């Protein structure tokens, strides 16, 4: 599974993209984030405040409790600030 990071999530983790293989049973975006947070200090810092975290699964905005079964691409990022 491809995971993308943007803005300060990307900066804290130190990369914009990872190929990951979460354990079987990782059912939701939130569970994926829990698992990713254990990969290092940067990940833990990026995911410390879940209220400031937003997600997209296969490029569609979803809430953190959305399922990730079959997803090819999950993106994690702060609330958007365009325009």
């Amino acid at each position, binding site marked *: 599974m491809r995971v993308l990071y*943007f803005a300060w999530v990307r900066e804290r983790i130190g990369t914009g993209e990872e190929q990951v293989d979460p354990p079987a049973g990782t059912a939701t975006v939130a569970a994926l984030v829990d698992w990713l947070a254990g990969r290092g200090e940067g990940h833990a810092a990026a995911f410390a405040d879940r209220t400031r975290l937003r997600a997209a699964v296969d*490029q569609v*905005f979803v809430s953190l409790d959305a399922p990730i079964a079959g997803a090819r691409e999950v993106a994690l990022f702060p609330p958007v*600030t*365009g325009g």
Partner: protein
Amino acid sequence: MIRVRVSPEPIDLAAEHARVERGGAVATFTGLVRADDGVEELTLEHYPGATEAALERLAEEATARWSLAAATIVHRVGAMRPGERIVFVAACAPHRAAALEACAFLIDRLKIDAPFWKRERRGTEARWVEQRDGDRGAAARWD
């Protein structure tokens, strides 16, 4: 006619406006890097692919809702300076009420629906812009 463009190039307002003039009324909104609050550089990051798809959906929704003759969303990405254009949205309709409302809808919803992130630099200090509470409220009035 829907036009969506995400690019590091400066926004050519005259060309974009001429392209959208297909009816009696055109309303536009342009967002600029504010020159008055000490920001020396603004950098826009985005989610390639997802951004364009989100903007297309937004333009299509506005076109269906207000029977637009044309809708344009052009958003710049990368580094820009105070006074430069960040975003240009435009709606064209036979009459003005539809054009004005659709234009406000496009920019209000873009602010919360499209994956862009702003980073401001003042001197050596850089910070990511926080989403404003008001942005969610402004977008919610179109629900």
